[in-house]
């Protein structure tokens, strides 16, 4: 499975209702050890929502410093985004992913996101 197979795919819940499209994939570094890198990046979940330009540009992240007018413009997109944990994903098909949850169950993709600044 490639990252490009997941990105932009449509995500539907078990009733076949649309949740949105995959905008990004959240990884967490706690997988099996891999060479000099260390613990592998495990697929934690899919960031799913409507509209994707804001995500692609990285404007919707809380740590972005502005410009405020853009943040305002993309704020709606951000609020519509949910994280679908990988253990809820049942099937990855061509351009269509089925997840074992209903849209309302998803939680805000950034709710648990610590804005870790990098050196």
């Amino acid at each position, binding site marked *: 499975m490639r990252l490009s197979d997941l990105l932009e795919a449509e995500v539907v819940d078990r009733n076949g209702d649309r949740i949105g499209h995959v905008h990004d994939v959240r990884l967490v570094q706690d997988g099996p050890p891999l060479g000099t890198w260390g613990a592998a990046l495990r697929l934690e979940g899919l960031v799913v929502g409507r509209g994707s330009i804001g995500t*692609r*540009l*990285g*404007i919707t992240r809380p*740590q*972005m*410093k*502005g*410009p*405020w*007018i*853009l943040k305002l413009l993309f704020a709606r997109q951000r609020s519509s985004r949910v994280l679908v944990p990988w253990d809820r994903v049942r099937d990855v098909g061509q351009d269509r992913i089925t997840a074992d949850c209903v849209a309302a169950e998803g939680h805000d993709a950034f709710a648990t996101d610590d804005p870790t*600044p*990098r050196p």
Partner: protein
Amino acid sequence: MKKLLGVTLGILTAVGGFLDIGDIVTASVTGARFRMSLAWAVLLGVIGIVIFAEMAGRVATVSHRPVFDLVRERVGARLGLANLLASYFINFLTLAAEVAGVSLALQLASDVNYLLWIPLVTFLVWIVIWRVKFETMEQVFGLAGLALIVMAVALWQLHPDWSSLWHSASHPEVTSGEGAPTYFYFGIALFGATMTPYEVFFFSSGAVEEHWQRSDLILNRANVYLGFPLGGALTLSLMAISAVVFAPMNITVEHLSQAALPTVVAVGKIGLALILIGFFAATFSAALETALSSGYTISQYFGWQWGKLVRPKEAARFHVVVLVSLIGAALLALTAIDPVKLTEYTVVLAAAALPLTYFPILVVANDPDFMGDKVNSRLSNALATGYMGILVVVSVATIPLMIATKGGA
């Protein structure tokens, strides 16, 4: 002295960007036709390029990432590729025009047809890129471009009616006998010329090539705040001397030879010598900038090693792109396509593509992951956001105006 030489990147970028073959003629044409009533377009462009070049230089200095690298990452592989194709196409046409432009400058000094100069000029551009260190290149051509200051001297020598020039600049209006679309078409041509994307491609890549570090951010500012306004002042001088000499005599400017004439009238032989050196340096700088930018943009999109800092063998794909672009451009120039018309159109086309280049810079300059504490200030965000609005309006208005005025005819 070393400090002084440190700002040659900005001077080179600005002179090659604002006073390339098409812009020299455009500035002269607009001066003759509209006197100073389009000075605002140059001023607007200079402020814009100062804001965005400072940002691009700061991003390149802090994150060591040049503009096209950011374009690909932020707008994505697909839209980034569309931008790459558009930028390369515009860049290539400009390169062809500049190769012809350098040859035209040599024709003025030799009375030997410019087409005969093209092979030699192409070779010279290539050898500079192949063999000359980035810093040396930037110092030689940046300083040679300063010969154009003679245009400001010429303005002084012409003893113009300053208040009338000022009035024309500060009370812009569509000159009688000219249509409003033509007026705005030339306005966009001047604005587009000062904000041509190859300037930020070149400037930000240059900052990476020169290994600017955080401590060099002051150097970035100095380059931007000195180089670009200087380039703008030279453009305005050319516009003013053309207005003073040509407008009363009903001369319309068509050729590079005419653009040098006011300086000859005012300063004589020394003026002519200096302005020919200046024209050569400016067009040659533009040729270098566009030739290198063709390599920079493609390499930075695909992640290939680029730059003049490493041995050519170690940046093989980059040098192949530059070489092939240069040869192709020389062949196009040899078809005797009018370089002045060609740059006029490419500048206007570039104006239509401006937001694609400047938007990713603005976004990344706000990202603390890249910039740490060097993110944009509120002021530069406010200004840059305002300019994004202008750029969008310009990019929408450009093509219809071009068609409506038949290219400013």
